[in-house]
């Protein structure tokens, strides 16, 4: 007789058994998040927003990379940032200092952003259309891999001070990302980091992952990153124009028939 968990209390069990029934179900625990993510994705599509989910371990240089990116893009394209951290508004303040609009989400005890939080953050970014929204996730190479925010792509940022075997240690994140940015390349002479080996590890998990090497501090490699962003945005705009054109044609045809 186990008094702690009640595993040997036949009288009580039998009494309840008559009304008990078994139900076969198939309920994905990520499905609630995925539903919110789908709503976000539709919203982003309607507003022609390229949304990138930036993920990394803490200190890989996400905020620094964003600062440099925004400095180059502001005035040419609409941009905004959603900042995710457990505590403080420090990152949002840094982003706002560049002149870009930033919304800070504090997850408190949470280790990742979820799609519901991002949906609410969009309430503060209602005016943002036809541009790029960067979501800087909580610094964590584990959990954000499993939570779709409705983004077009995850971009994983890895700094050379972290070790070239990170893709093997945290494979889920590298499997989920479209692009790997290897940051802080200016420090390569001072650290034991084999770039080729790192890329080989990442492609072992995700053969199609794209790679850009840069230093946000010195600006080396930054043009390639900016070109990648521009290319992604251009192709989103072309797809959007295609859809709008199709809708326009359908409506015109309807009008002419009527």
């Amino acid at each position, binding site marked *: 007789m186990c008094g702690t968990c*009640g595993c040997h209390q036949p009288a009580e069990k039998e009494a*309840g058994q008559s*009304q*008990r*029934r*078994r*139900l*076969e*179900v*198939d*309920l*994905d*625990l*990520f*499905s*609630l*998040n995925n539903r919110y993510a789908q709503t976000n994705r539709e919203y982003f599509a309607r507003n022609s927003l390229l949304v990138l989910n930036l993920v990394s371990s803490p200190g890989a240089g996400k905020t620094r990379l964003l600062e440099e990116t925004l400095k180059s893009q502001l005035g040419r394209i609409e941009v905004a940032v959603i900042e995710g951290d457990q505590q403080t508004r420090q990152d949002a303040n840094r982003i706002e200092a560049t002149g870009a609009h930033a919304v800070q989400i504090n997850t408190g*005890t*949470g*280790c*990742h952003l*979820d799609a519901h939080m991002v949906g609410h953050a969009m309430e503060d970014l209602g005016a943002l259309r036809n541009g790029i929204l960067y979501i800087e996730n909580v610094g*964590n190479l*584990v*959990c954000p*891999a*499993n*939570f779709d925010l409705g983004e077009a792509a995850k971009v994983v940022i890895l700094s050379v001070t972290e070790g070239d075997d990170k893709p*093997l240690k945290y*494979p*889920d994140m590298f*499997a989920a990302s479209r692009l790997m940015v290897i940051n802080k390349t200016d420090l390569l002479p001072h650290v034991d980091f084999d770039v080729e080996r790192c890329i080989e590890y990442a*492609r*072992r*998990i*995700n*053969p199609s992952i794209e790679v850009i090497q840069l230093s946000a501090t010195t600006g080396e490699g930054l043009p390639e990153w900016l070109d990648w962003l521009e290319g992604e945005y251009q192709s989103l705009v072309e797809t959007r124009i295609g859809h709008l054109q199709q809708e326009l044609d359908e409506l015109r045809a309807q009008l002419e028939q009527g």
Partner: protein
Amino acid sequence: MHELSLCRSLIKQLEMQAQQQGFSRVHEIWLEVGPMSAVMPKSLEFAFSACSRGTLADGATLHIVEQPARARCGVCGEICTVSSRFDPCPNCAAEGLALLSGDGVAIKELEVE
């Protein structure tokens, strides 16, 4: 690492099911956990005991069924069982197999009243 938020999602799913399927208590839950879901069964049990308190699943037994992951080889098309993302294809030894299942967590069966 995100067991707590998954457990909140679990309780929410149970509450929705309770309305749809007409039950008010959950006694047992069979949960299928994939090896690539970044979920630790022990943490999940702990999080569940905290999250379920005062809900329709208070005191329910959580059965965690660990399921192997399945993947498809992009080179030869073989579908196989894998235990990690690095497993090569058992047929042609290619790497970088595309995961078909094993990164999810799903409720498969319930005992309710």
